[in-house]
């Protein structure tokens, strides 16, 4: 039986999956159109979600023991509705994720995490004990710390790996096909760290932001002459949660605080100020010269997140480019033209 457990939203506590003996496998969607998913979900719903459903229906995913779907936004809520009926066989676990960060929300989320662990354990080989969970928490923190260290070298401008390589490494890190592969995370990071940067440090330094960033966008930005030095998305920086402050003795409370207190996703409307501080810190620390926002089509949170970022960039005098995308790998011609023009504009500044 497969020990791979699928997950989608970055608010999914992979530590619990690891502690129960599963290998967490992130569903990162697929390239191309999603004709079969479109028969189950309306066309104007998140393309990332459609893409994951399409991959499941077409059996393009590795064999999964199940999938954890966090009800983190409307699209995920509806994916949770259709997945059991039209998607994949195996266990479906639904996780409620609060949209606030306060003691009440942390406590509530911790209860949900406890329930998730218990539901997963029913089909797993063992019940989850707290020692194992703490061990998994430490293991994941070790990995995240290594990633943070690698990515932080880009702040200082030390011969960093480019965004394309980083995104590729992060994607591989999120999609190990078995536990042995998952344990080779150091190899992935070390290889990246040793990789000489073939990109000129004089290129415009960019912050790329969005709900989820398509890898091909970053590749295109760098092919056009930009340097992606900070990727604010749920498949990049937002994965690298820093250890929670005020760690409690209860691992579920710890995890709840860790995830809710991480870099905020646009869905956390109550945390908008925190999100602005997050951008400000990135801009200052990484010497950002321009910002590109990838607005995922039909993502309500991203639409309004862009407005907040626009206001932030206007105050800071930072050039901002918005690119709409449907996660299909399309839009290349239009993107390229606009990125080239944007980079030209940055170079003459």
């Amino acid at each position: 039986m497969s020990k791979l457990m699928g997950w989608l939203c970055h608010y999914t506590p992979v530590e619990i999956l690891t502690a129960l003996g599963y290998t967490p496998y992130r569903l990162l969607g697929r390239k191309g159109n999603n004709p079969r998913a479109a028969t189950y979900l309306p066309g104007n719903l998140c393309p990332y979600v459609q893409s994951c459903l399409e991959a499941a229906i077409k059996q393009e995913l590795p064999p999964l023991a199940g999938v954890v779907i966090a009800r983190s936004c409307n699209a995920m809520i509806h994916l949770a509705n259709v997945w059991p009926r039209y998607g994949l066989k195996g266990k479906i676990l639904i996780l409620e994720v609060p949209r606030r960060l306060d003691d009440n929300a942390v406590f509530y989320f911790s209860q949900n995490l406890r329930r998730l662990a218990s539901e997963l354990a029913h089909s797993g080989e063992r019940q989850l004990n707290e020692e194992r969970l703490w061990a998994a928490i430490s293991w994941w923190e070790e990995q995240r710390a290594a990633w943070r260290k690698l990515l932080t070298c880009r702040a200082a401008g030390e011969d960093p790996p480019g965004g394309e390589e980083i995104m590729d490494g992060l994607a591989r890190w999120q999609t190990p096909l078995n536990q042995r592969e998952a344990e080779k995370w150091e190899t992935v990071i070390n290889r990246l760290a040793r990789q000489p940067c073939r990109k000129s440090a004089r290129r415009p330094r960019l912050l790329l932001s969005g709900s989820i960033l398509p890898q091909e966008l970053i590749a295109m930005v760098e092919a056009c002459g930009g340097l992606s030095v900070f990727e604010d998305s749920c498949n990049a920086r937002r994965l690298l949660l820093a250890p929670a402050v005020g760690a409690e003795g209860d691992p579920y409370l710890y995890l709840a605080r860790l995830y809710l207190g991480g870099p905020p996703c646009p869905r956390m409307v109550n945390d908008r100020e925190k999100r602005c501080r997050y951008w400000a810190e990135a801009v200052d620390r990484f010497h950002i010269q321009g910002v590109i926002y990838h607005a995922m089509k039909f993502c309500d949170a991203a639409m309004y997140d862009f407005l907040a970022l626009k206001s932030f960039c206007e105050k800071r005098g930072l050039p901002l480019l918005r690119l709409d995308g449907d996660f299909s790998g399309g839009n290349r011609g239009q993107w390229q033209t606009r990125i080239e023009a944007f980079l030209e504009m940055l170079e003459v500044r």
Partner: protein
Amino acid sequence: MDIYQLLRSYLGSTLRQRAIRSPWTYRLLKQAVAAQKRHYPWQAAHRLLLNTIDQAAAAFLQKGPVIWHNVFFPTEVLYGLGTVPFAPEAAAVVATGLGIAERALQRAEGDWVSSEACSFHRLAHGCDREGYFPPPGAVVCSSHLCDTAPQSLAATAAYHGVPFYLLDVPHQQDDTALEYVARQLKSITFSLVETLNLAWDEDRFQAALVNSNAARERLLAINRLRQQRPACIRGEEAHSFIYLMLAGFGAATSVEVYGELLTELAQRYRDQRRAVPEEKARLVWLHLRPYYPNAIFQILEQEAGAVVVCEEMNYVYWEPLDPERPFYSLARKVLSHHGLGPITRRIEAILAMVDAYQAGGVIHFAHWGCRQSTAGLRMLQDALRERGIPFLNLEGDCVDQSKYAPGAVRTRLEGFLEMLL
């Protein structure tokens, strides 16, 4: 005289923003509406309009702290605090009637609010930034069902520099979720008291819950009457009262309106005054309807005799509130919404409506940008098909008239009616 025509003429000048802040506007309006009483087919609708004018006057003339809320937030809290609730989504409907939607939508587009977003919120954004809405003292919003409302209202709160309170509503209906929501409701309530310097009056707060229960009882009685054949109120007429579900629970005036509607409706059932001369089919209407002039109900009800006998938005999904335990019972109400949780809950609720109202068909109006309502349609359609119930998904936009295609709508409705009749 059409009330919207009167308003349009009054607000159609360059003084429009000033006009909505003048007490004379509301006096004039009330007098004009009061004088037209006999011309309203339903006196309850007339009373509702007068009450709405009073509420608008209170908001625009800042007769108390104005609190913006989304239509799913439990308004009992706001009435219980003695504040002036203002629902921008509902006000967007009025803006459509007043003919200022086009300009407001253009403003939203100019402010980079994506055209993929729900047009209720785009319109509300435009109206607010153009000065057509009363500035809020605070903004409250619940997260359930709709992703856009919290985003849009948080942006509005930031724009006006006022506090924003999010009621985070999970999809589970268990005790932990109940506790989580109840605590938030209590915290939001007392934060509003503190921030807006309100006087906490427990009796008033409990009275809002009592009013809510009374309104609920009357609405249930109305719905029970509407389950009888033949229909004595057309769906187009009944739709006007949805406003109370979205913004009126907790107000004494809502009890009056429902009470009056109940009396009138009961009388009509006694007199057997039919809604249409020959009732050929009975329909359940899901989600909302377009609020600009359109022929949908004319085609369905007047031309074909297919009467909308039940609106999803008029469905009473919650149990009575307990004024002694206000926050827990309001939390229970919020969590009871059939749109929360797995889609099977909404499907069960809709099938129950079909049975209770003896409906032969279901129409869903798929408002552009409303992902919460449309995303689960495939499963709903499958469930209805299994029961042999004809279903029409009518795509359109509730407030953006430019998206209305009369020919296409007629063709789709006629196709559906052919199947139905």
